[in-house]
């Protein structure tokens, strides 16, 4: 009988070079804290929205700092933190070729369906 094990990966298991992050930081890593992006979910059922960024030494500290800085006034019930270097963003100069072709293809736009009232806030 064979067993299938799910291996849980923890932060740091995947070595930096294979992690997919960029290497924008040029200062010595031992003395500077990395930058983290913070996403907060304000209510059960909604998505995590980007709330800002902060510096922290590790993931645990980043969550606590995010809790202290971004949930002071009841802004949320759940926090995600990601190191900024792992966020890959599209290049603004390529905005033309990425986004403009979709504009005049109205047969793709989801605007003709009438949402029922119960889900109208989507």
């Amino acid at each position, binding site marked *: 009988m064979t067993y299938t094990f799910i291996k849980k990966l923890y932060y740091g298991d995947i070595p930096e070079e294979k992690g997919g992050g960029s290497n924008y930081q040029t200062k010595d890593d031992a003395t500077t804290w990395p930058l983290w992006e913070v996403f907060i979910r304000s209510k059960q059922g909604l998505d995590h929205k980007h709330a800002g960024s902060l*510096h922290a030494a590790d993931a645990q500290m980043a969550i*606590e*700092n995010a809790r*202290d*800085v971004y949930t002071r006034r009841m802004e949320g019930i759940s926090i995600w933190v990601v190191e900024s270097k792992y966020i890959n963003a599209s290049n603004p100069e390529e905005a033309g070729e990425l986004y403009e072709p979709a504009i005049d293809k109205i047969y793709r736009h989801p605007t003709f369906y009438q949402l029922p009232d119960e889900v109208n806030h989507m």
Partner: protein
Amino acid sequence: MNSQLIDYTLHLADTTLILSQRNSEWCGHGPVLEQDIAITNISLDLLGQSRNFYQYAAQLIGDTDENKLAYLRKEREFKNLLLVEQANGDWGQTILRQYLFSKFQYLLFEQLQNGNDEQLAAIAAKSIKETAYHVRWSSEWVIRLGDGNEESRSRMINAIDELWRYTGEMFAPAAYETLVDVSLLEKNWLDKVKEIFNEATLNVPENTFMQSGGKEGKHTEQLGFILTELQYMQRTYPDAEW
């Protein structure tokens, strides 16, 4: 019986007020932005707890209010622990003071929320969540600094030397402390502190003489300066309001 309850409530209120005032001295001076916000958040949490206690005490005493109790009493009338009036020192000393106190406060609130006094039980039940976060935050900093580099470790060792003599007072019951027997909390507290100190590669001091007197109004020279700043506005412009 009632005067005991009043004294005890004032002791709880004064302790949290003075610690809140001490932590607030970091506002704008924190080592890092996020930690500046963290320590001032803790200060506000403690202020909230202190207000709850003062309001209850004012109700018990009658014909007074939380403001008079906080702003118009003198040093010898304050019953806070000696530990919380000690100077902030460096960041290590501040977080160590927070940890040693909050761990005790957590154990105290655990007992208080099942105690005989309804109002104190309610305040404890509400505040224990805040205290749980204070314990978590400060214990991690103790580990981070203790198990950090040479400088952070030596600063933590100095901080322990400075503060340990004030920890005994937390477990020596005053005459009015009849609701919860704090001497029973000491073993649990010491075990947890040893656990954290082990991880932080720090040592718990042995056979230290313990200072006392705060609960009876006999304070160190620090309290006078704290109250001067805290009470200046109310004493100079009586009944002034925002």
